[in-house]
């Protein structure tokens, strides 16, 4: 009561009041602790001879590493393109009113998400044990063209088939998530305007679905980039296989693993920058 009457007795002029922000001393303590840990790690990177930066630098741009890097990029690119083409077919199938298409798509996604990539790759590489020749012809009838399986499916071919089929199952779910995120009334509005089905999908549905598709798709692409290291089991000279070959020869395990690691980090950074610009393109109309 007395406090109130005191305040009323001497009302301070509003414009003379100063705002004092709250102090946060613990933020400074936390920041200092984290910085000490970071400094220790950085010191170790420089002083610990185990990192062997000389060997790292010697192999970082070495010719066999560059060739391996190219194969990694090619496998990622081809796997992503084939995988997402598969996904764009499988996702509408799973949302279709046709029960046969729906079940086939559901089963495909179930099977290819269930089988570990490494197991699937080994199956493809050993296709010749199951079918020693492949033929094109009338279903259940006479064959017209014959191939020897092992000459048709090389180990690189097996790797690509494996990655693409595996990727298609995940891409299908990502595309489906995008499609169902679009308000159904958008398609109703397009239908009321008499816009043909394919154009509804391409002009109205897909551009809006892309907003939900892109973050997950970029995630999947980064995942795929690193999954290409699994194809080392087929003795394909991609990045991870190649550094293993080198350290198998010279025994410098840590610096060569570091060569592969830094390249994976750089490629992921490039993909992230690319993702930023593609996402910005599809946010048209949502930005203020």
């Amino acid at each position, binding site marked *: 009561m007395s406090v109130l009457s005191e305040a009323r007795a001497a009302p301070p002029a509003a414009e003379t009041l100063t705002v004092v922000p709250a102090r946060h001393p613990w933020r400074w303590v936390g920041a200092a602790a984290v910085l000490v840990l970071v400094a220790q790690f950085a010191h170790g990177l420089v002083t610990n001879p185990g990192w062997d930066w000389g060997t790292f630098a010697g192999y970082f741009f070495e010719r066999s590493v560059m060739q391996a890097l190219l194969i990694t990029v090619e496998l990622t690119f081809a796997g992503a393109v084939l995988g997402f083409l598969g996904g764009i077919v499988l996702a509408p199938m799973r949302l279709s009113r046709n029960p046969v298409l729906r079940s086939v798509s559901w089963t495909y996604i179930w099977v290819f998400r269930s089988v570990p990539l490494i197991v699937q790759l080994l199956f493809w590489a050993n296709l010749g044990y199951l079918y020693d020749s492949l033929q094109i012809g009338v279903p259940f009838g006479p064959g017209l063209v014959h191939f020897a399986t092992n000459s048709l499916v090389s180990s690189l071919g097996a790797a690509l088939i494996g990655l693409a089929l595996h990727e298609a199952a995940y891409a299908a779910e990502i595309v489906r998530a995008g499609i169902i995120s679009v308000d159904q009334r958008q398609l109703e509005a397009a239908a009321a*305007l008499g816009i*043909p*089905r394919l154009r509804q999908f391409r002009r109205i549905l897909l551009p809006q679905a892309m907003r939900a598709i892109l973050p997950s798709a970029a995630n999947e692409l980064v995942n795929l980039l690193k999954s290409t290291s699994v194809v080392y089991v087929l003795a394909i000279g991609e990045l991870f296989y190649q550094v293993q070959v080198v350290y198998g020869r010279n025994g410098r395990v840590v610096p060569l693993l570091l060569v592969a690691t830094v390249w994976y980090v750089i490629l992921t950074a490039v993909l992230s920058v690319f993702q930023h610009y593609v996402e910005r393109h599809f946010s048209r109309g949502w930005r203020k």
Partner: protein
Amino acid sequence: MTKPLTMVEIRGVHKSFGSLEVLQGIDLTIEKGSVTVILGPSGSGKSTLLRTINHLEKVDRGHVRVDGELIGYRQDGDRLYELHERHVLKQRAGIGFVFQTFNLFPHLTVLENVTEALLRRPRAEAKQRALDLLDRVGLADKAAAYPRQLSGGQQQRVAIARALALDPKLVLFDEPTSALDPELVGEVLDVMRDLARAGTTMIVVTHEIGFAREAADSIVFLDGGRILEHGPPAQVLDSPVHDRTRAFLSKVLS
């Protein structure tokens, strides 16, 4: 079969959602150049009836003709064959539809929203047509804006311009002002009044009794999936025959 002055002919239309029969035998004839307002409590089947006219909703029994053309079906003797979707889409191009929630395409500009349906016209011609229509609804200066940057009333006016793009013979309005803030209702009704004066055949589901009284040629009162009243505004609004109509009107007018 259909008189030349008839725009819409609805005969014996029934429609159920599961066990709920939303339309229980609707017969209605709408003349060319007329404005018809459909009133009724929520759940009475107003929107469903409107949506059967451009086949956004399939009917279970009965049929709808627009300008003499059977909608959604092809008649052969005493059988109706369901049309393939691409034929239905072509029929819909002649019927404009304005939604309660506007349903503009958010990733396209206002201009692109209006030109989207004009896919068979040369680009320059489509653009000019869209600009003329935007001018007609008073939004030519917003052509480059995105729907999200407009108020609800402006979005609905763009939606009306979009519905008019294909020069429809009939425009259907499904509660066009129900999602708007009260102060924005007037601008949309003004555009609709202009259309009515220009002789556009319109069917409007709405709760705006003032608009019905002044712009409608006839009013249909729907309750429980049946037409209870049908007549000029003065008759339906001032001396309704049914108690249900009186009860409804006293609620919306109070």
